[in-house]
């Protein structure tokens, strides 16, 4: 295979080298274009990451203090005089003036003369208004304490808490501060003597809504969210899976099923507030379920999650290879048996992932809840899903609008709790998928 090479004339050599150069230049351009293209991608990712880091670090920096609460450890004198007798009746126990007992304890601890009205008042103002309830709880739980002096942890006022956490500037003029110079002096001494400390804030998880930051917590909101998520699971998963299996396995391909399919995809993109309006019209005005009930919230969120679950389930079901169905049918299984025994179990990881992601979306939703009255101040725990409740994101929204400084950290703290739930749910979804996913 002798190839005759044309003799290289100087002219053609020149043009060839020019051509080569042009090609090389073009290749170089193409390579650098590709490098730039990649760099844009990396820049986009870094940009997104930077925002994420900034978001998380600000929320964390603002919110981590919410998990600690300033607490006075006081020796409370439960003398018989305050209760009327040495063995008080339950009603005497309930009706005793615990505010007075608490105030006396703080005045004694700070060395304030209780006869000096102004000072006594100023000292009492350092305690949370909930101090009486805390002491009452301890005494009613154990009436034998009457007549003794007991060490009790009582919450400090929200202003004291904000001061300890550095949210108040001590240097501003006294008249523009929430705490006077005298009160600051007492507090400094209290910190030194160890009766005023920051303790882990269990109240943040157990209290309901409150107008005072120190006694405000996400307890009611957590229960409300839990009820709603249970209802979403009970309603949306069976409905969604049934609809998806029918559409994927049984439904004939025609105009009607096509329309349904398009509309399910559209529903997934409908703004959530629309579902709230729907819930208001149907569940509250037509069906007469009470406003603010977590049942209504759960049903509305279930409707909202339904399209997500249907789409995820259809994708999971259609990803099961036809050979599995055919094999089942081949050995004599009915269509239903092939689906319930083979297709569905294999599709479960995909269904679970879709469900959990749908639930996570529902957990963070506030807009539809506004319409059905769940953006509300609810103090009492709901005992059934028919009782008034709020949800976690709603609690965050309500605190964000409050004027007191203590609510700023609580807003961020509750956001951290919500984020923790979302992360846990998403990680569960990932683990389930990793664990049970079958590759073909």
């Amino acid at each position, binding site marked *: 295979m002798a190839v005759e090479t044309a003799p290289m004339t100087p002219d053609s050599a020149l043009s060839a080298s020019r051509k080569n150069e042009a090609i090389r230049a073009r290749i170089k351009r193409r390579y650098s274009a590709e490098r730039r293209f990649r760099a844009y991608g990396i820049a986009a990712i870094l940009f997104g990451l930077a925002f994420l880091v900034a978001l998380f670090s600000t929320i964390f920096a603002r919110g981590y203090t919410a998990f600690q609460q300033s607490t006075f450890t006081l020796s409370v004198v439960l003398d018989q005089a305050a209760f009327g007798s040495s063995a008080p009746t339950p009603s005497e126990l309930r009706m005793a003036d615990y505010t007075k007992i608490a105030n006396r304890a703080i005045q004694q601890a700070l060395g304030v003369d209780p006869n000096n009205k102004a000072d006594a008042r100023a000292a009492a103002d350092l305690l949370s208004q909930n101090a009486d*309830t805390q002491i009452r709880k301890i005494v009613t739980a154990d009436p034998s304490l009457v007549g003794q002096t007991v060490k009790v942890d009582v919450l400090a006022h929200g202003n004291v808490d904000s001061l300890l956490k550095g949210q*108040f*500037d001590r240097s*501003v003029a006294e008249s*523009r*501060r*929430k705490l006077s110079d005298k009160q600051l002096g007492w507090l400094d001494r209290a910190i030194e003597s160890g009766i005023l400390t920051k303790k882990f804030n269990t109240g943040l998880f157990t209290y309901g*809504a*409150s*107008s*005072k930051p120190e006694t405000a917590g996400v307890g009611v909101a957590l229960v409300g969210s839990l009820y709603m998520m249970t209802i979403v699971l*009970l*309603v949306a998963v*069976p409905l969604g899976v*049934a609809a998806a299996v029918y559409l994927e396995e049984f439904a004939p391909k025609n105009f009607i099923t096509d329309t349904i399919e398009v509309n399910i995809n559209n529903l997934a993109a409908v703004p959530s507030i629309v579902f709230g309006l729907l819930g208001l019209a149907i569940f*509250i*005005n037509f*069906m*007469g*379920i*009470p*406003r*603010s009930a977590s*049942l209504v919230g759960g049903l509305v969120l279930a409707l909202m999650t339904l399209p997500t679950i249907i789409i995820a389930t259809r994708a999971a079901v259609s990803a099961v290879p036809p050979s599995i169905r055919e094999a089942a049918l081949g050995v004599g299984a009915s269509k*239903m*048996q092939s689906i*319930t*025994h083979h297709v*569905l*179990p294999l599709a479960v990881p995909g269904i679970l992932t879709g469900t959990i992601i749908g639930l996570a979306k529902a957990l963070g939703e506030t807009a539809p809840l*506004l319409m059905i*009255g769940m*953006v*509300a*101040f*609810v*103090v*009492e725990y709901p005992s059934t*899903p*028919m*009782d*008034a409740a709020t949800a976690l994101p709603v609690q965050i929204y*309500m605190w*964000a*609008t*409050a*004027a*007191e*400084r203590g609510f700023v950290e609580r807003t961020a703290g509750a956001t951290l709790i919500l984020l923790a739930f979302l992360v846990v749910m998403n990680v569960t979804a990932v683990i389930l998928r990793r664990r049970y996913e079958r590759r073909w």
Partner: protein
Amino acid sequence: MNNKFIAFTTAAAVGMGAFACAALARDQVKVAGSSTVLPYANIVAEQFGKAFGDLKTPVIESGGSSGGLKQFCAGVGEDKLDIANSSRKIKAGEQEECAKNGVNDIVEVKFGYDGIVFAVDESAGTWKLEPQDLYLALAAEVPKDGALVANPYKTWKEVNASLPDTPIAAFIPGEKHGTREVFEEKILHVGCKASGGDKLQLAKAEGKDDDAKKKAADKACNKVRKDGAAVDIDGDYTETLARIQSNKQGVGVFGLSFYENNKDKLKVATVSGVEPSLETVASGKYPVSRPLFFYVKKAHLGVIPGLKEYVEFFTSDRILSADGPLVEYGLVPLPDAERKEVQELVKSGKTLSTAAK
């Protein structure tokens, strides 16, 4: 799998049915409305829960005066609201809407006043504002040399030589807020008159009779400039505060109680030479204030457990007096005589007359 699956679905369906059927009698007072009234109502509800151990704590929804009144007027019944909180008086149109839905008897309870203050960042100097200054700085059209012109002012100093030489940047409540109405009525309207703008607007106004012309002129007076110097805040005071902290030369509109809680970050401006405080608002010396109300559905009194007690508790001396918890939070208390009147009104259950329209 299939048995389990079917059992699961049936359980869910049965559960749903059971919930839907259980239309329990309501034993909890439901309230909705103004976000200005919300913190006060929260305090009262909380203390109510403590004081009446056997009654449930009321549920207080936010959602704005108009939103609350709209729901309130939706009808009588267990699934309807008992009380609407409002930072303004109920409008004639709303009363008609109420009547149409069978809510005829409404008890109007005025429980205090709210001062509206203008505040700047704490690092700023002292500000002394007049309604006229605010009108000239913020209106869409202002009188200049005897004619109406599109607002030409760029800095506060141009408006009034005693004000600082900083660009005009004001954060005012958006149009859905009840506060906006007070701002228009007590500041823009007054300023319009003081600067002579109302006469010019009247001369320009179109309408078929004098009444319609006057209305059109009033409306034109209240128009706020749209060139970025005046920013509508549709959120709440926390947003206004954030805006001022990022723009230290800005002026914001706040409720007095919000200011009292953030005194270390904000400095208040005097209006017409009066510094806003509980005393000056209560005495009427400070010009920018408004009454706060809640409206009670009389048909629900005695039917919904706790409603009567809640209303009486709200208007009791323990809550409303000058050393009560609401005043501590920043409510401007009613004068003693007026408080007695309100307590009488609650006791007698006197309803709003339809003639009050």
